[in-house]
C-alpha cells in the first residue's frame, strides 16, 4: 500500500462548476492509504505543481493521484512535476474528471459522485503501481537498405547525405531496378535513364554508401538500433576488385543463347554479361546456369580474354555479417505472370506483350534499338490494342483485388508515344475506368486523346485470336453498345503489379507484418505511412503498395528522414510500460509470441531450481523491452497469466474495476 496524496483540480470553473471539488477531496481523503488530500484552482499551474511537490516532501508520498483533465492532456506534466520532487514519474495516476465527468454531466450531485468513484479507481490503481524506469538501448549508426531500385537509391542517398553510413543490398548484378527498363517517364516524357543513371553513379561514388550487388539478406536478428544482418554475396565468378567492366568477355563468350533477362527475354545475351551499359557496379557476372565452363569444365574463354585476371570460376557464395541501427525495405514490385490469361493469347503469340516488354521495344537501348517492331516478324505494327486492368481489380484467384495504380498513366504514355513516333498507327486503349489523379496526370491523359487521337474505348477485350499474322481482337464498346472486332498487329497488356517474391521471406525475417497481398503494412495507414509496425523497420517504394516514380521517391525520402531521426540518437529511450513475463509461471507455449505484432518475444531454455534440490530446464518467454510497445495482446493470449503489462497490470485493471463497481 502506498502513501497516497490526492490533488483535486478545479480547472477554474471547468470542473468546479459541476463537481463539488471540496467534497471530492474530503471523501477521497477517507480512502485507505490516502494521507493527504486537497483541491486547488489550477493544478497544472506553477503554484499548483509546487503544491504537489511540497506535499510529496512533507507527507513522504509514494503515490500521487491527480483528479483533473484527461491524462492525454497533462499526464506528462504531472509526471515531470513528481519526478522533480523525487517521486518516480510512474507513481502518478490521473482521474479524468473533466472531459469524462464535469463536461458531460449537468447534475452536480451526480457529477460529484462520479468524480469520487473515478478518484477511487485511480487510488486503487496507484496502490498497485510500481516505480518504472525507462531503459535505453544504444543505436548503431548505420542503415541497411534492402533493394537498390529508385526507392532504395533515393533513401540511401538521403541517409548518406545526413552523414550516416548506409549499405544497399541488391539481388541483381546492378542497382537501378525496374526504372532502368523503362523508356520514358510520365507525365513529362523525359527519359528514365537520363534521370536515373546519375543517381546510380552518385550512390556508387558516395563514400558513405556501400553497395552489395548480386546479394541477398540471409538472416536478421536483433531489434531497433541493434540489428545484426547476415548478407549473402552470391558467387558471380568475377573478382569485383579486379574487373574493370571493359566488357571484352561479354563479347567473346561463345555461349550466345541466353535469354536476356534485362530485355525480358526479347533478345539474347552471353553467359557472362553486364546487364546494360550504365550498370552500377559495372562488373561482369557469369550466369552459372548457362556457362559451359561451370557446367562442363571446358571453355574458359572469358578467363583467357580478361586482361585484369578477374575471372574466378572457383568463387563461392560469401556471407557477411553487419550491424545496423535501422533497416529500410525497398524490395519493389514485378508485373504478374499472365499464364492464367490465355484469352489474350499472351503465350500463343509473341506480338502480345506486357507493358514492360513494350517499354523495352520502345527503348533505344532495347532489342530493337528503339524502333517499334513486332517481335514475330520485325514489321511495324499498324494497329495496336492496349488492354488495361489485366489481373488488377479481380475478385478471382487469377488476379489481384487491388488497382495497380500506374497502368492508366503508362498506357496513356505508350499510346501517346506510338502516335507521336508513328502517326500512321491506329491505337486503341480499352479501359474500365481511367484513373489519373496526380499532378498534371489527367491533362496528360486528355492530351493522348485530344492531341494524339488515341481511341479510348470504354469496355474490355474478351478474346484475342492469332490468325494469319494478325491478332483478331474481340472487344466490347459499352458506350456504343456494340461488340468490336479489330484486326490488330500488336496487343499490349497492362499486367497487374505485385510485390517482389523476395518480400514474404524477408518480412518473416524482419517480423514485419504484411497484408494478404504481400505488401508490407505500415505502422499507421495515415500517420505513419513509411514505418513498419516493427520498430526500426522502414518502408520505401512499391513494397508498401503500388506507386509511381514521384510517389516512390517522395516516400523514399520520407523513409530516409525517419531513419536519420533514429540514427541521430545515441540511444533509444524505451517505453517502460512493456510486457514482462513471470518466468516461474511461463509455460513456453508460444501463444504470446504468435500475437506480438513487433516480434518482441523470444524464447530461451532456462534452468530453474526444482523441488528437492533438482534443476529443471524450461522454455520461457523473454520480452525485449526495446521492441515491445506495450499493447498487451500477449497478456491476454497467455493462459497462465505469466505475461503481464507494466503500468496496466491485471491486478491494476481489476482494482480499477472493483473500485468502479463498488
Amino acid at each position, binding site marked *: 500500500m502506498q502513501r497516497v496524496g490526492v490533488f483535486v483540480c478545479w480547472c477554474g470553473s471547468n470542473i468546479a462548476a459541476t463537481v463539488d471539488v471540496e467534497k471530492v477531496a474530503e471523501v477521497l481523503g477517507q480512502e485507505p492509504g490516502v494521507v493527504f488530500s486537497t483541491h486547488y484552482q489550477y493544478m497544472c499551474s506553477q503554484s499548483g505543481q509546487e503544491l504537489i511537490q511540497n506535499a510529496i516532501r512533507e507527507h513522504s508520498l509514494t503515490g500521487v493521484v491527480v483528479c483533473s483533465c*484527461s*491524462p*492525454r492532456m497533462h499526464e506528462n506534466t504531472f509526471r515531470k512535476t513528481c519526478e522533480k520532487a523525487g517521486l518516480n514519474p510512474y507513481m502518478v495516476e490521473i482521474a*479524468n474528471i*473533466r*472531459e*469524462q*465527468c464535469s*463536461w*458531460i*454531466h*449537468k*447534475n452536480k*450531485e*451526480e*457529477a*460529484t*459522485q*462520479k468524480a469520487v*468513484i*473515478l478518484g477511487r*479507481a485511480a487510488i486503487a490503481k496507484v496502490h498497485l503501481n510500481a516505480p518504472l524506469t525507462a531503459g535505453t538501448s544504444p543505436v548503431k549508426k548505420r542503415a541497411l537498405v534492402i533493394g537498390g531500385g529508385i526507392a532504395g537509391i533515393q533513401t540511401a542517398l538521403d541517409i548518406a547525405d545526413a552523414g550516416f553510413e548506409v549499405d544497399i543490398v541488391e539481388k541483381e548484378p546492378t542497382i537501378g531496378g525496374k526504372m532502368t527498363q523503362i523508356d520514358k517517364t510520365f507525365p513529362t516524357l523525359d527519359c528514365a535513364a537520363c534521370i536515373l543513371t546519375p543517381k546510380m553513379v552518385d550512390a556508387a561514388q558516395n563514400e558513405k554508401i556501400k553497395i552489395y550487388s548480386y546479394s541477398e539478406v540471409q538472416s536478421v536478428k536483433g531489434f531497433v538500433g541493434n540489428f545484426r544482418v547476415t548478407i549473402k554475396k552470391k558467387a558471380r565468378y568475377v573478382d569485383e576488385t579486379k574487373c574493370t567492366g571493359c566488357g571484352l568477355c561479354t563479347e567473346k563468350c561463345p555461349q550466345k543463347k541466353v535469354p536476356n533477362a534485362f530485355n525480358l527475354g526479347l533478345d539474347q545475351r552471353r553467359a557472362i554479361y553486364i546487364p546494360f551499359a550504365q550498370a552500377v557496379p559495372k562488373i561482369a557476372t557469369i550466369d552459372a546456369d548457362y556457362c559451359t565452363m561451370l557446367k562442363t569444365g571446358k571453355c574458359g574463354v572469358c578467363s583467357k580474354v580478361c586482361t585484369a585476371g578477374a575471372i574466378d570460376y572457383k568463387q563461392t557464395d560469401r556471407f557477411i555479417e553487419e550491424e545496423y541501427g535501422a533497416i529500410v525495405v525497398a524490395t519493389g514490385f514485378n508485373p504478374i505472370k499472365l499464364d492464367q490469361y490465355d484469352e489474350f493469347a499472351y503465350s500463343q503469340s509473341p506480338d502480345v506483350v506486357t507493358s514492360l516488354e513494350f517499354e523495352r521495344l520502345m527503348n533505344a537501348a532495347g532489342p530493337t534499338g528503339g524502333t517499334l517492331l513486332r517481335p514475330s516478324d520485325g514489321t511495324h505494327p499498324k494497329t495496336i490494342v492496349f488492354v488495361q486492368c489485366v489481373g488488377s481489380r479481380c475478385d478471382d484467384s487469377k488476379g489481384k483485388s487491388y488497382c495497380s495504380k500506374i497502368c492508366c498513366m503508362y498506357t496513356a504514355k505508350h499510346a501517346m508515344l506510338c502516335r507521336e513516333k508513328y502517326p500512321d498507327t491506329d491505337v486503341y486503349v480499352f479501359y474500365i475506368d481511367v484513373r489519373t489523379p496526380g499532378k498534371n496526370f489527367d491533362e496528360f491523359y486528355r492530351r493522348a486523346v485530344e492531341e494524339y487521337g488515341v481511341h479510348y474505348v470504354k469496355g474490355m477485350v474478351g478474346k484475342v485470336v492469332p490468325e494469319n499474322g494478325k491478332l483478331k481482337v474481340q472487344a466490347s464498346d459499352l458506350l456504343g453498345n456494340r461488340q468490336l472486332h479489330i484486326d490488330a498487329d500488336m496487343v499490349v497488356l497492362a499486367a497487374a503489379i505485385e510485390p517482389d517474391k523476395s518480400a514474404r521471406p524477408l518480412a518473416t525475417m524482419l517480423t514485419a*507484418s504484411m497484408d494478404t497481398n504481400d505488401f508490407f*503494412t505500415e*505502422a*499507421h*495507414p495515415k500517420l505513419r505511412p513509411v514505418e513498419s*509496425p516493427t520498430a526500426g523497420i522502414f518502408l520505401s517504394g512499391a513494397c508498401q503498395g503500388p506507386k509511381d516514380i514521384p510517389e516512390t521517391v517522395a516516400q523514399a525520402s520520407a523513409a530516409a528522414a525517419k531513419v536519420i531521426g533514429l540514427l541521430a540518437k545515441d540511444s533509444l529511450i524505451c517505453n517502460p*510500460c512493456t510486457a514482462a513475463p513471470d518466468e516461474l509461471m511461463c509455460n513456453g507455449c508460444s501463444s504470446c509470441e504468435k*500475437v506480438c*505484432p513487433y516480434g518482441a518475444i523470444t524464447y530461451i531454455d532456462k534452468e530453474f531450481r526444482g523441488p528437492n534440490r533438482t534443476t529443471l530446464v524450461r522454455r520461457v518467454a523473454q520480452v525485449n523491452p526495446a521492441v515491445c*510497445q*506495450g*499493447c*498487451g*495482446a500477449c*497478456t*491476454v*493470449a497467455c493462459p497462465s497469466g505469466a505475461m503481464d*503489462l507494466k503500468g*496496466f497490470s*491485471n491486478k491494476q*485493471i*481489476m482494482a*480499477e*474495476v*472493483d473500485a*468502479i*463497481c*463498488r
Partner: protein
Amino acid sequence: MSVNNEFQPTIVAFCCNWCSYAGADLSGTNRLQYPANVKIIRIPCSCRLNPMFILRAFQRGADGVILCGCHPGDCHYTTGNYYARRRMTLLFSMLDYLGIERDRTRVEWVSAAEGAKFAATMNDFAATIHKLGPNRRLEDLRCRKD
C-alpha cells in the same frame, strides 16, 4: 448519495488509449452528455482486455460492460483490435450460450474523431442496460449492494 431509488445501472467502459479514450475526451470537449453511471477505464489497446476483467466487473456489480477500440485497420499497434474482435466474439458467444443476456456486453469501434459517436453509443448502451434491468445472472451475491 444516490439520486433516486430508480435502478441506476453500473456500466464499465473499457477504452483503448489511442482512439476511443480520445473519442471519449472529444465528446467531453464537445459537451455531449451521456449518463454518469458510465465509467471509463483506460487500457492501452482493446487487445489488453482480458475476459477476466469483464467477468470481474459483473461479479463486482456491473450491469453492463462495453469495450471501445480503434476501428479495425486503425489500431495504433496495427493488429490489436483484430485479436480483440475474435476474443470478444467468442467470449460473448460463450456468455450467450451460458444464458447471460447478450445485450449486457458490447464492442463498439470509436475513433478519436468520433466524440459524437462515443456519446451516442454510451447513451444507447445505458438505455439498453436500463431496460434489461440489474445483472442477476452473472453476479456475486456477496457483492450485492442492497
